[in-house]
């Protein structure tokens, strides 16, 4: 006799069984998973590695500053991620709650979702300065922002507005451009 089971019930049963035998097996169930904000922080870190800032020589002694504007767990994740690491010999630090007046003293600015309404003002303040702007606000690249992070089929992707980036004197590597979705070309 064939017993039909709802697929949901079966997978739940498997999960229970897996729970019980978990310590015994080194099983490899499919599907990776990382929290979105941690993954986004890792992307932000990588952008620093694949973009060239003007005047790297003069800056060589200074810290490389990631500034976080608004409340987001990405800042915390990034702080842990960059701890004790360098880029082009510069020590990376994260400045959470960066004051608006200090935006221009950062190398990278991450704008949290809470900044939706003040986006234009922030970008206006940064116009022409060699500061990379990154955000996951929808339509960020295209509204004056440089790199927009977005989710597509459960993965994080990024879009680059090359014109905005070049206007600020930043040079993205060809590898970065090859992996990005380009906006405003």
């Amino acid at each position: 006799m064939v017993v039909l089971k709802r697929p949901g019930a079966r997978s739940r049963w498997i999960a229970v069984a897996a729970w019980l035998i978990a310590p015994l097996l080194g099983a490899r169930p499919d599907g990776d998973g990382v929290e979105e904000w941690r993954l986004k922080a890792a992307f932000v870190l990588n952008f620093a590695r694949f973009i060239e800032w003007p005047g790297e020589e003069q800056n060589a002694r200074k810290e490389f500053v990631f500034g976080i504007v608004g409340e987001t767990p990405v800042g915390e994740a990034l702080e842990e991620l960059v701890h004790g690491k360098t880029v082009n010999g510069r020590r990376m630090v994260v400045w959470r709650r960066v004051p608006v007046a200090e935006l221009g003293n950062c190398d990278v600015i991450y704008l949290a979702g809470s900044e939706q309404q003040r986006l234009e003002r922030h970008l206006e303040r940064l116009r022409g300065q060699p500061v990379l702007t990154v955000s996951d606000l929808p339509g960020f690249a295209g509204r004056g922002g440089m790199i927009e992070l977005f989710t597509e089929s459960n993965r994080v992707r990024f879009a680059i507005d090359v014109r905005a980036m070049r206007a600020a004197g930043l040079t993205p590597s060809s590898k970065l451009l090859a992996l990005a979705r380009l906006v405003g070309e």
Partner: protein
Amino acid sequence: MRVRWMILCLAFEAGAAGSAAQVDLSRLSLEELLELEVTSAARKQQPLAHTPAAVYVITQQELRRSGFTTLAEALRLAPGLQVARVNSSTWAISARGFNSIFANKLLVLIDGRSVYTPLYSGVYWELQDLPLELIERIEVIRGPGATMWGANAVNGVINVITKHARDTQGGLLTFGGGTPGDAFAALHFGGKGGSNLSYRVYTKFDRHGEFLTASGQPAGDPWSNSRTGVRLDWEIGPRDALTLLGDGVQVRARSIALLPGFTPPYLGEAQLVQTSTGGNLLTRWTHQHRRGASSTLQIYYDRYDRALRFVTEARDTIDLDYQHRSRPAARHELLWGFALRHSADDAPPSQIVSFTPRSESIRLGSAFAADEVELIRERLWLQAGLRLERSSYLTLEAQPTARILFAPATEHHLWAAVSRAVRAPSRGERSVAMLVSVEPPAASAEAPAPALPVATWLFGHPAFGPASLISFEGGYRGRPWRNISVDLALFFHRYRGLRSVEVGLPSAAGEPVLHWSRRYQFANASRGRSGGLEAVVRWEPRPSCRLTGMYSHLAYEVGLEPSADLFRTTSAEYTQTPRHQGSLRWSWDPSRRWQIDAALYYTGEQRPFPASASRPPPLAPAWRADLRLSWTARQNLELSWTGRNLLDDRRPEFIPEVWLRQQEVRRGVYGQLRWWF
């Protein structure tokens, strides 16, 4: 943006929240990052500003930079907590007053496991000393959290959350030592078994030097602690995650106690040796349903044997906790769950303390539901919840809360809350028989003739009831000016059914010698009020420089219920809490390799209540200064030097209410090495 329900959800999803995997994510290429799948956004950590409660989060970075080496000491980093080290291995810790070595209104959880003992509703801090490197953060909630956390979350909740195994890959060796007689070593190592399974093991040992007596002699109270544990985190699939963790601990502590006896001198110093062992195993399963709902099932078993000469306790606890979170309608988030606990103890009698019956099992069951609704988009949120709880010591008790959060502008949040919380009676308050003191024959004027020693016994009351709290709180959290953030909380608490004692008439007794026996018995005839303010201001002028100032003020009043028999009753809520407390901490990175941290702590005058002629005078206001210097010699090697209590050679922090001598903490300096491999 959703409001956080008192961070409860985070405690259960401890692994999901917080720090990133240093080894993993930062070493992955862009291509690899693009391939990684994102887990459900429902687990996303909400910012602290969105919690309508008085909460402070001690981060791993603060822990590391504070130079503290024990969990209990690290709680000094939070505002509104009173942390006093009574002797080398004993702490008195409470929130919003009522501090005592038996402080009983605080709920302490380590990875969701309750660590207070139902014997007296307090915490054996020396048994909870996790390696600080493995702690992701400590959430400190002042004020009642009973709706979310259950009984005993009256004056506060301390929620210690350890790192996800994924975040402790590779090895870390820490060791060091210094004065006065401190030495420690800790090692942890993490690895992977497949792409979704990570684990770590740790072991640590530490030894803590002696305090000094009031006359400057060594106090004979060194202690040592060894601990070993494992953690395993497994993402079973995109929707299921499993965590398995366990610890074993062994503590050996010496101390000198003042114990009463029936023969002269009637109060004698006794050398005590505490030997304790404990272990626990916890498993937690989180399932993500479709449409953003999730459920969590947690089961743990905990056992410890704590043997002191006059109080011995062995306890087995098994606990099951289920929690479900969903969004039944737009703008609503519903949370409900239930918990069951069975706790059985064995407390053999000694000459000074005994419990009747010697062994007892306590059962506890509770259920809660809470809803959060966004009344005005991005502006106004309301939370309302209720927990019903019943246990062997508690008839059905309702613990409701209502909280409101208002965001007049993006970086400004105002909140207010009204809650009720209940403290369940402890086993001691129901069934203890304790010899408090023996007075020499002629010393007591009120004793009847003939002149015999007068023994005072304290008894539990078989019908001792719960104490309850109604609390009104409010606060502001925000960034009023550029790089300055402010967190301000005001509260007013009203307690009913607090502990009192009723004094009986002396009667003659023949054992072990002929004496008068005076009988005190616990009752619930006290009540109290307290009010205060807690403030945290943080100024971050540069990313490499941070200044944090904290201040807390507390005023309280404890008295008897109008119905109490004034001739026979006195309040028995010991409290020794300063009116003013504050700290100033400064963190600075002068260069890429150096870190400097300086901290100044202030504790106002401590006046014990109820006052007693036999106690030493109140403790004068005291300052404490700590300084830490750290040098990152190589990317994986850090050396640091820490000075503690730099201002005084020695200084008492607390007047113990019973048994213990007043002892003094010493200045100390230690060095530490950390090596990541």
